[in-house]
C-alpha cells in the first residue's frame, strides 16, 4: 500500500467489521459522532471554567454531580432495560455538562441529580436515545427542576463572589442584599464571600411591569434635576411633563464590561459572554454549528427587544407605555439598551450551545434560520410580554417541538422539484 494511502486512514481500531465496509465509499471522513460530542464537550468546558472562576468551587461540584449522574443514570437505564447503549456515554457527558451550565452555582446537591434524572430519562432515553429525542435533554432537565424547585433555581436574590474570593470562595456565604453597580471595586460584606444581588435580567424585567413601573427612563441624560452640568436641557421627546422620581434603567445595571466578562449574577455557564462567543466560534469553525442559526437567533431577539414596549413611570407613578424603545430616547441610548437586553441573560449560551444541539434543530440551512428566528422571537416575546425569566430556554424547547414540521416543509430543492411556494399553492 502506498504511503500516501496509509496516512489517510485513521486507525482507531485494528478490527475491520466486514458489514461496515461492504459498500462504497471505502474512504470515510475522519469525523465520527463521538468526536462531535467530545469536541462539543470540550468547547462547553470553556463557559464552565469561566463559571468556576466566577462562582467558585461550588460550580465545579454542580457540574461533576450533573455529569456523573447523567452518565450513571443512562448506564443504569440501559442495564435495566437490557438495550445496548449506542454512543451513550459521550452524549451523556455532554448533556450533563450543558445541564450544569444552566443551573446556578449555589443549588443544593440534589438539584443537579434530579435534573440529570429528568434530562436522561424523560429527555433522552424514552425517545430511543441519541438521534431520536425531540427536546434538548439538558433543557428538559432544567425545566423539571425549574418547576419543582423555583425558589432555589430562580430565587429573588442571587449571589456573586467578590473579587478577592474568586475561584476559592464559597458562594453560599453571602452578605445582605444590596444593589451592585461596580463589582470590581466593591469588597464583599464583612465575614462573607459573596454579595447577594439581583441578576441584571431581573432588573430589566421590571421594565415589562405595567402595574408598578420601576424606572422613569432608559437613560438619565435628560433629567434636569440630576444633570449636574446642566448642559442637556432639551426637553425629552416622548416624556413631556415628567417629574423624575425614579432612577433610569441603565444607571441601575452593572457596567457593560462586567457583563462581557461575566461578573454578574446568573447561572454557571451563562454569564461569561466572551468565552461563550469564542467557544461558539470554534464550533462554527468545526462545522458543528452553522453560523446562520445563532446569528438568526440573536438578531431576531434584538429586533424584538428594539420594538417591544417598555413601561416607564410618569409623575404620580402611573405606568406609561413606550413602543420602539430603541428610538424613544435616541438611537445611542436605544443601542445600549438592546445590548443590555442581549448580554444580561442566558441568550448567548442558548444561541451557541443549546439551540444548536444537532438532533433537535432542523437539518437544512433554511430550516435552521427559521428555527433561529422563531427562538429569538419567542424568547423575547416571553420576556417582554409575559415576564418569563429564563425565556430563551423555554423558547428553544418550544421551537424544538416544531423541528419535524420545519424539516418536512423546508427541504433542499432537488433538481426538477418545485419550489416550496409553488408546492404549497398546489396543495
Amino acid at each position, binding site marked *: *500500500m*502506498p504511503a*500516501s*494511502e*496509509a496516512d*489517510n*486512514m*485513521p*486507525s*482507531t*481500531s*485494528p*478490527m*475491520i*467489521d466486514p*458489514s*461496515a*465496509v*461492504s*459498500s*462504497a*465509499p*471505502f*474512504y*470515510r*471522513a*475522519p*469525523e*465520527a*459522532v*463521538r*468526536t*462531535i460530542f467530545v469536541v462539543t464537550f470540550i468547547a462547553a468546558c470553556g463557559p464552565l471554567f469561566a463559571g468556576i472562576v466566577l462562582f467558585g468551587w461550588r460550580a465545579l461540584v454542580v457540574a461533576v454531580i450533573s455529569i456523573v449522574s447523567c452518565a450513571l443514570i443512562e448506564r443504569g437505564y440501559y442495564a435495566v432495560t437490557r438495550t445496548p447503549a*449506542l*454512543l451513550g456515554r459521550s452524549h451523556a457527558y455532554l448533556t450533563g455538562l450543558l445541564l450544569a451550565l444552566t443551573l446556578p452555582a449555589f443549588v443544593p446537591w440534589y438539584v443537579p441529580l434530579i435534573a440529570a434524572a429528568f434530562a436522561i430519562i424523560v429527555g433522552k432515553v424514552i425517545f*430511543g*436515545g*441519541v*438521534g*431520536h429525542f425531540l427536546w434538548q435533554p439538558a433543557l428538559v432537565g432544567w425545566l423539571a427542576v425549574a418547576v419543582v424547585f423555583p425558589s432555589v433555581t430562580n430565587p429573588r436574590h442571587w449571589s456573586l463572589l467578590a473579587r478577592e474570593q474568586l475561584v476559592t470562595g464559597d458562594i453560599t456565604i453571602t452578605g445582605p442584599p444590596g444593589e451592585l453597580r461596580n463589582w470590581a471595586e466593591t469588597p464583599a460584606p464583612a465575614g462573607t464571600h459573596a454579595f447577594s444581588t439581583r441578576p441584571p435580567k431581573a432588573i430589566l424585567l421590571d421594565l415589562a411591569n405595567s402595574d408598578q413601573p420601576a424606572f422613569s427612563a432608559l437613560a438619565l441624560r435628560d433629567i434636569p434635576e440630576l444633570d449636574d452640568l446642566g448642559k442637556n436641557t432639551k426637553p425629552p421627546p416622548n416624556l413631556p411633563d415628567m417629574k423624575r422620581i425614579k432612577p433610569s434603567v441603565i444607571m441601575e445595571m452593572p457596567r457593560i464590561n462586567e457583563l462581557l466578562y461575566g461578573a454578574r449574577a446568573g447561572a454557571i455557564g451563562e454569564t461569561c459572554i466572551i468565552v461563550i462567543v469564542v467557544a461558539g466560534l470554534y464550533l462554527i469553525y468545526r*462545522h*458543528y454549528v*452553522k453560523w446562520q442559526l445563532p446569528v438568526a437567533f440573536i438578531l431576531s431577539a434584538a429586533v424584538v427587544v428594539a420594538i417591544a414596549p417598555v413601561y416607564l413611570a410618569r409623575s404620580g407613578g402611573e405606568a406609561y407605555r413606550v413602543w420602539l424603545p430603541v428610538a424613544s430616547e435616541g438611537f445611542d441610548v436605544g443601542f445600549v439598551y438592546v445590548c443590555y437586553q442581549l448580554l444580561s441573560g442566558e441568550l448567548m449560551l442558548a444561541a451557541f450551545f443549546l439551540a444548536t444541539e*444537532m*438532533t433537535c*434543530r*432542523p*437539518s*437544512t*440551512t433554511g430550516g*435552521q434560520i427559521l428555527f433561529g428566528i422563531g427562538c429569538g422571537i419567542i424568547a423575547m416575546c416571553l420576556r417582554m410580554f409575559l415576564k418569563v425569566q429564563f425565556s430563551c430556554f423555554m423558547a428553544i424547547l418550544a421551537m424544538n417541538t416544531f423541528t419535524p414540521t420545519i*424539516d*418536512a416543509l423546508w*427541504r*433542499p*430543492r*432537488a*433538481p*426538477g*422539484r418545485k419550489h416550496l411556494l409553488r408546492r404549497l399553492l398546489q396543495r
Partner: protein
Amino acid sequence: MRAPRIRSFGTFSGGIDLPDDKGSTLNAPIGAWTEIRRLSLPLDQNAESAASPIVQKDQKVTAGESIATGHNEAPDIFAPADAIVTGFSTVEIAGRLTTQKSPAIDLELTSSIELPAANPVKPHWSKLGEAAMWDRLTEGPISVHRGGALPLAAWVLRARSKSCGLLVANAMEQQPLVTANHRLMVEYGAEVTEGLAILARATGIPNAALVVPRRRTDAYRSLAVPAKKYNITQVALSHKYPTEADTILVRALTRRQVPPGRTPMDAGVAVIDPATCFAVYRWIACDQRLPGRIVTVSGAAQHPSGNYFLPFGVHCLDIINSDEHIVIHGGPMIGALCNEETVVTPATDAILSITPSPHAPPSPCIRCGWCADHCPARLNVPALNDDFELSMVEDARRAGVSACVGCGVCSYVCPARLPLTQRVGELKLAAIDAAAAENKGEE
C-alpha cells in the same frame, strides 16, 4: 436543441474536496500485464442487448475470431487472442446503480494480450461518407458505459434523436487513487481528442468539449493542437468532487439541470468518457478492436502499483489477491467489492487493494445535516434515511430520490457511519420500479 453556453468557471452547490492521493500511480506509464491466462468474456451488457455464443467447449479460437453474435444492436464478441474455450460461467460486472450478473464464455489464453500501436488506415476517417461511417459504427465492438451499458450505435442513435447541442468528453477523474484516464490522456491524448471528433461527427453534434480537472491541466498542454484542429473546446473545471458525475458535470458546465432519473441527453448534452473515445478512434481510424482498457492497479503482488492495459473479462482477483486488504473495482468512492466472479469491463477504471477506514458500526443518525449540505443532488439525505428505515418509497420518490448520482459523498461525511449511499441507492431503485409499475398500470 439549442447549443448550451459553456461556463468555464461553472460549479455547483454541495460536493466536497477529497484527498487526491494519486501520487503513487500518477506518473506511472501504462504497462502491460503479461501473466493473464484465463478470461471470462461477459455476454450480456444489459437486459436488452445480449449476445449468444457460437462456440463449443474445448474449441480452439484464434485472435479476432467471432465467438458470440449480438442481438438488438449488441456488438459481436471476438476472441482477443488465441485461446481455448474452457466452458461457460457467470460473472459479475458493474451495471446500472449496482453490479449485475451476466453469462460469460471462459477462455484459456495461449498468447498474451498487449495494447497494439496505433496504425491509422487509409482513407482518413474524415473522408468517410455518412453511410460508411455508420456501417463501421454498427459493426464496432464498442459499448458505452455511462450508468448502464449501451452499444455504441444505440448511443449514437439516442444522441441524434434527442438532438443534443453539446458533446462532452468527461475526463474529470476525481476519486482518490484512480489515474487511468489521466494516463490515457497523457499518453494517448491526441487519439482521444480525435475519437471525440469522430463521435461529434457521427452524432451530428456541432459543439464538442473536453473537460479535464483544473489540477492536471499542465499535463494536457499538448492536446491544444488536435483540439484546435477539430474545433474542440477545452475546459478545466474545479476539483470539487463529484464534478465527474455526468449530471453534475452538465450542471456545472452548462447550468442545465438534468431531470431526476434521466440522462444528460435529456438536457441536450451527450457525455462520453475518454476511454470510449480512445476505443472509437482505434476502431474507426485504425481498424483495431481494442481487447481491453487502461486500468489503475494498486496493491498487486506481481507488479508495482501503476496503470496497466488489461483485457476485458480478466478476473479482478487474478490481478490482485490479498488476504489482508479488501479488493475493490471502480474508485474508492463509488466502487464495489470484488468477488470471485468480478471481471474487468469497459466500466472498470481501477482495481485497488485498500485498507478501509476502520470504524465503529453505524449508529443512529444524529441529524447533523452534513450529508444534506454536501449532497450534490440537493437531496435531504437524513429524511431519505428515515424513509429507508420506514420503507416509505413513495415519500422518497416525491422528495426526488432519483436525482441521486450515487457519488458516495453522503456516506463519506456521515459521522454516524451510516451506509447512506447504499440506502439512497436502494430507495432510488425501488422508486424507479414503482414508477415503471405505475406507467404500466396507466397504459
